[in-house]
């Protein structure tokens, strides 16, 4: 994958995500649209009230995979800039866990790219959340990332 444009902003943080700053970051005079996805901590899961969530990541790989997503949506859609921020650590109900902003001259590309980005992030970026309830905690059900095919000849990429 090629590196994302240097105007993109891709990061992990343990602090509150400043959505307004990310929107300002991606929008430019030539853009007619900014589409955002604000993923926030829900107060229930599987019918139980949630107290809070703890997020952890394989940070170096997560960042690399988030950059891959930015590169991929630049390649697939006629968009301008991308911001992807994911928060780690303890998050309270209602806080933003992930924020994505995509700008483009016209809205269809921004909608499509933003949707593709969050769907791909949830499937391929090594981040995990643990949900805390009254009396216990569970690791959230997740998605298994696609694995490379098994190669009997044992040839691998470096």
């Amino acid at each position, binding site marked *: 994958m090629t590196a994302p444009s240097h105007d993109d902003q891709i990061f992990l943080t343990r602090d509150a995500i400043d959505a307004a700053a990310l929107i300002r970051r991606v929008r430019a005079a030539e853009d007619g649209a900014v589409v955002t996805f604000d993923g926030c901590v829900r107060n229930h899961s599987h019918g139980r009230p949630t107290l809070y969530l703890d997020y952890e990541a394989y940070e170096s*790989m997560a960042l690399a995979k988030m950059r891959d997503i930015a590169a991929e949506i630049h390649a697939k859609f006629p968009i301008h800039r991308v911001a992807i921020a994911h928060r780690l650590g303890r998050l309270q109900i209602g806080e933003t*866990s992930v924020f994505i902003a995509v700008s483009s001259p016209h809205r269809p590309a921004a909608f499509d790219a933003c949707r593709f980005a969050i769907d791909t992030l949830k499937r391929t*970026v*090594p981040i*995990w959340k643990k949900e805390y309830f009254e009396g216990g905690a569970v690791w959230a059900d997740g998605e298994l*990332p696609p*694995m490379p095919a098994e190669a009997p000849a*044992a040839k691998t990429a470096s």
Partner: protein
Amino acid sequence: MIAALAPTLPASYNSLVPVTSQTVRVKVLFFGRLKEIAGRGEDSAEIAEGASIEHLFAAFTAQHPELAPFRASLVASRNQEFAAWSTPLHAGDEVAFLPPVSGG
């Protein structure tokens, strides 16, 4: 092929294999519930040069049998890229065992 045979040999196999065989050290990372089961997020392992990720996982399940049931619902990575279980390992590689991801 040494990589395929080494993990099935007894612990004393080093005295039996040809001098061309090498043992290498790899870094191993556990995340999510696996980290809780393994009791640590980071470890290292000595394996035969070219041994697969599958063999490395088997070495850890020998130590922590409660890891074994998770094998079917894990993916692995080598040097921050998703990797097939048959991927051969070399000195200094960083391998991670990753439960289903749940970011977002």
